[in-house]
């Protein structure tokens, strides 16, 4: 690409794109999606990585210069988007979507290299031929996007209550929304990669020198791709971090019985994991210990789950013959990216009939 001063326009593709991103992220924020700490940081890191990667000039090279390879890449991306749209998943669900996201991220990076990012290049970075090359895919992509959106609305409109269950689930969990969001940004590049003819071998650009920024961009891409996998693999080995407190409850204490408030939180995993809590009040009267509140089936749930799905293995409360109260909450945290990776966490409360805390948590 060539650096040239072009006529400065107030309405550029970049400004429209930036406004769109701010609006969408803003709505996400307002919708409450921006509440997971690690996910938020990771999203910020991804955005910074995209900015750094985009600032480095690229050449497609021999391999990505071939049209069959580029068309294959577009096919993989399309398949990934279709599978991602159809996979029902929830915030805590186990699904292929996180794994698909990683594959798609890698494909989008390759797509950017294959098309030299001409599809979204600013005017100052393209010459007149590249400008016409950039504008044509946008025209075609608009038609495709409009057709897809129209078809989706049509299906949603004509589907019956029974037949639209898959659509309801799909819309509820937001995957078509993410697909359309991705298409807004990448469909022109996909069209360009599909249409652009093979480059003559004499025009294959020489390998670009590895600048410091290029190395930084590559490192950031590697971190962005490997971090979720590394954090997932760390889930079974990361030490559990537990905070707890036991507080006497004078308001509940009488001559006949005494009570204590038990609170414990065990955090499993780094970045990807969950918090398993106990928050309960238990009492004793000398004959037996018993639950006042917080030790029921409905209290067995984790929170703050990121990249994992939790399933309760055991949630039981029993009282021994000698009056000792036993509560066991055992949960399995399974990675959403690599479902064969999991971690079992157990929380216990054993309270003797004389108020002695035998085990907690």
């Amino acid at each position, binding site marked *: 690409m*060539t650096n040239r001063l072009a*006529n400065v326009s107030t309405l550029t593709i970049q400004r429209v794109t930036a406004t769109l991103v701010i609006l969408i992220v803003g709505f996400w924020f307002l919708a409450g999606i921006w509440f997971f700490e690690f996910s938020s940081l990771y999203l910020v890191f991804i955005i910074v990585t995209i900015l750094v990667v985009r600032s480095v000039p690229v050449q497609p090279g021999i391999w990505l210069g071939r049209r069959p390879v580029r068309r294959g890449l577009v096919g993989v991306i399309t398949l990934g988007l279709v599978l991602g749209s159809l996979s029902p998943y929830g915030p805590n669900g186990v699904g292929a979507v996180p794994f698909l996201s990683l594959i798609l991220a890698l494909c989008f990076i390759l797509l950017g290299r294959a098309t030299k990012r001409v599809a979204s290049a600013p005017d100052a970075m393209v010459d*007149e*031929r*590249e400008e*016409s090359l950039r504008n044509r895919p946008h025209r075609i992509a608009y038609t495709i996007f409009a057709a897809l959106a129209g078809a989706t609305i049509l299906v949603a409109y004509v589907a019956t209550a029974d037949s639209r269950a898959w659509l309801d689930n799909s819309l509820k969990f937001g995957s078509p929304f993410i697909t359309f969001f991705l298409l807004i940004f990448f469909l022109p590049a996909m069209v360009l990669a599909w249409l652009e003819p093979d*480059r*003559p071998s004499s*025009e294959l*650009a020489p390998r670009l020198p590895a600048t410091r920024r290029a190395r930084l961009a590559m490192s950031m891409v590697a971190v962005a791709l490997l971090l979720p996998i590394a954090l997932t693999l760390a889930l079974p080995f990361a030490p559990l971090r537990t905070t707890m407190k036991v507080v006497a409850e004078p308001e509940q204490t009488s001559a006949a019985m005494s009570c204590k408030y038990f609170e414990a939180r065990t955090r499993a995993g780094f970045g990807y994991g969950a918090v398993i809590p106990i928050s309960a009040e238990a009492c004793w009267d000398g004959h037996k210990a018993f639950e006042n509140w917080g030790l029921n089936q409905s209290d067995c749930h984790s929170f703050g789950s990121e990249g994992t799905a939790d399933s309760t293995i055991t949630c039981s409360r029993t009282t021994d013959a000698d009056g000792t109260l036993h509560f066991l909450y055992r949960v399995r945290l399974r990675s959403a990216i690599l479902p064969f990776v999991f971690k079992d966490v157990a929380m216990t409360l054993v309270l003797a009939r004389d108020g002695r805390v035998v085990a907690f948590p």
Partner: protein
Amino acid sequence: MAARGDGNSPSSANSKLYNRIAVLRAERNLSRQELAEAVGVNFQTIGYIERGEYNPSLDLAFRLAETFGLPIEAIFSRQPFRPLSEEIYRRPRVAGEGPNT
């Protein structure tokens, strides 16, 4: 002067522009990259123009003409160019006459 982006990909044989850029480049010992830098375009664009797959805008055509120090009609034509040797000698080829006669 035409604005940038007024060039186009020839959609039919009628809209094709013939050019001598490859020959002129070879005469001046210029690579595509060097010529591209001189006129401010991507080096691949030079290749597209040389092959007749892209018709440059008037602005770019003038820049190419200035770079080679030739009038535009010496570089671009609606008709296929005759070989430069024939242009120089201004002599129509006679049947049976060899190239070195």
